[in-house]
């Protein structure tokens, strides 16, 4: 298929891999974090780890929108969905995420009107078609999806649709990266920067990473050759002792981002003082809520929500996985108590979650490493 196959060529991949290898110092391991769950998915789906030189160790970061939603927020969503007059709309990925009281899929089976949508505009359409019902959209995601929620809110206001409500859980990527950088477990050589988020925010917000933490970052696209080229660009920076924000995804990402999308977000949403991230805890100014002007469309104001913080199950190590401190298989419950069909942690739910990606795609045994005695 045009514009897809070109980015998946095995021949080109072999050439790029050889060039990466030539840039690496012998006997050194390079730990690179792909921040975005979309990259994690690409890496496993195309088997990129087997194509890369063994010295490159890819660490999967916190950029999976489903994975970072804490259990308490899922319980809030369940309490909205359980109301008799509510049609609760959500992206499919959120359906199986366990809260403290089950999942939306289970709530649907028990009678709640939960509907999967591909876009918040679909939810607005449902609201238009059901004027007597409350239609709530479970808004999740980073700056990638926040503009579409923002545009939907603007449209709801302009069309006077007053039975549409957004349950806003949008988060922002920079505080999460900062949390990783300041974590005591931090040991990384560079970052593969998020592609879709950067189409919105641009590349400037990453400057502090190279300036204050001296780690190179390359914004990358989501096809396998994009990721491979980004690894090559990081390896080249390290070899040349440079430390810069570079953009591999130039066909989509501009330095200044997408001003219109940013305006739409700014018009409808503002930063929360603090928001809980699954596994990372409370991070100040890391999430968005609706502005006062959009109070009417705000599900958090419309309903009396439990708003209870639910501690993650003790056995769950999603936090360490999200920070890249442990690999998915190092979690105590990986693949045994926690599987894609009965997930304990969010990382096992979304196809962008590191655990689900590793379980579904990566579970291949390879020759044992020779451990020097």
């Amino acid at each position, binding site marked *: *298929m045009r514009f*897809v*196959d070109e980015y*998946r*060529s*095995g021949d080109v*991949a*072999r050439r790029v891999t050889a060039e990466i290898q030539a840039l690496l110092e012998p006997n050194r391991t390079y730990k690179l974090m792909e921040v975005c769950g979309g990259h994690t998915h690409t890496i*496993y*789906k*195309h*088997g*990129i*780890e*087997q*194509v890369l030189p063994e010295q490159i160790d890819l660490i999967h970061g916190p950029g999976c929108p489903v994975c970072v939603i804490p259990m308490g927020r899922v319980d809030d969503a369940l309490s909205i969905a359980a109301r008799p007059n509510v049609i609760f709309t959500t992206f*499919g990925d959120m*359906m*199986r995420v366990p809260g403290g009281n089950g999942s939306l*899929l*289970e709530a*649907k*089976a*028990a009678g709640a009107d939960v509907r999967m949508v*591909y876009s918040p505009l*679909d939810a607005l359409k449902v609201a238009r078609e059901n004027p007597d019902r409350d239609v709530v959209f479970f808004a999740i995601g980073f700056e990638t999806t926040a503009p579409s929620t923002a545009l939907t809110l603007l449209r709801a206001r302009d069309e006077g649709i007053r039975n549409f409500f957004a349950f806003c859980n949008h988060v922002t990527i920079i505080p999460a990266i900062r949390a990783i950088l300041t974590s005591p477990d931090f040991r990384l050589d560079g970052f593969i920067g998020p592609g879709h988020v950067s189409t919105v925010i641009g590349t400037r917000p990453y400057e502090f990473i190279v300036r204050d933490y001296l780690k190179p970052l390359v914004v990358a696209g989501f096809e*396998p*050759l994009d990721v491979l080229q980004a690894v090559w660009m990081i390896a080249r920076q390290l070899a040349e002792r440079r430390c810069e924000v570079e953009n591999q995804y130039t066909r989509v990402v501009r330095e200044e981002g997408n001003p219109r999308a940013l305006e739409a977000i700014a018009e409808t949403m503002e930063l929360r003082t603090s928001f809980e991230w699954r596994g990372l805890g409370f991070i100040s100014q890391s999430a968005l809520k609706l502005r006062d002007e959009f109070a009417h469309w705000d599900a958090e104001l419309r309903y009396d929500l439990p708003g209870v913080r639910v501690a993650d199950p003790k056995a769950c190590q999603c936090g360490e996985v999200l920070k890249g401190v442990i*690999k998915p*298989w*190092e979690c105590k419950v*990986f*693949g*045994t108590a926690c*599987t*894609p*069909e*009965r997930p304990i942690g969010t990382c096992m739910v979304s*196809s962008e979650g590191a655990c689900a990606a590793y*379980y*579904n*795609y*990566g*579970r*291949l*045994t*390879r*020759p*044992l*490493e020779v*451990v020097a005695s």
Partner: protein
Amino acid sequence: MSAREREVLEAVERLRRLRPKLKDELITLAHGAGGRASRVLVEALFLEELGNPVLAELEDAARIDGLALTTDSYVVKPLFFPGGDIGELAVNGTINDLAVSGARPLCLCAGFVIEEGFPIADLRRIAASMGEAARAAGVPVVAGDTKVVERGHGDGVYVTTTGIGVIDEGVELSPANVQVGDRILVSGPMGDHGVAIMIARGALELEVELESDTAPLHALVGDLLASCEGVRWLRDPTRGGLATVLNELALATELAVVLDEGAIPVRPEVTGACEILGIDPLYVANEGKLVAVVAREHAEEALEALRADRVARDAAIVGEVQPDPPGLVVLETSFGGRRIVDMLVGDPLPRIC
């Protein structure tokens, strides 16, 4: 890889082979998706309560004294879609379950659950299309049943068809025949039906011209078995797609199925729609395709036999059976990597057939 990682992966593999426990309290759409949850439901509930040696085979059709018997319910939404409708699907689908069991289909029964208020004209259209499909296939519908439920207690019409066929002497298709080195063939592009239905629902607002591949396969299977030795096992990759049937094969044989991504035929429209939806075409339903496992030395012959038939002119050899890793389906990606193709979890596309 470290010894510890290998231990974890081995524990996962042991768990995958344990008889599954049904822990859910309510039926969810995942139980109908043909993937892992469906398997748990069948094995931990139906097999436990109805268990007998014939059922325990869990093949597409039961085999009893040279006869093959199968049944299938159709709940597709919408009822009419590009390339077919629920009536044609109900005839072809059940014929195909018999065909891939190595049986010559003899006749069908049909049951209709109809919702109060359903237009008679639509029901006639469905029945006419069943009649046409049955006549074209030479497999008549010889008995039937109708029930009507109150408005709101059904979604238009649900159709169940049951089929009976004869297994000729010498025909024995079973995972037990499958050996290392055997080749995996598919009879054409994967995923047409599922994607055509998704697009026909209109929710995606994609403008793609794509038809369901619904077609009877008994003539194709008959020709293949008559003209080619070494056919070990056949399946029609319906709900859950190619990935699901090959996982069943890998687990049943404790061998590895290794696929070559670049060799698997998928139409660009299907690839494109799947990219947008975030679905893998390997899990998308087909209604007129078969998967064949054929001895290595007869694989080319089988490919020619398939391609000689119009419904399989784009047939391809897509992989082979290897000893390792046992019980898993592995995809060699066009990119040069390897990954697992696991059983489907959840249901990305409900009510496809």
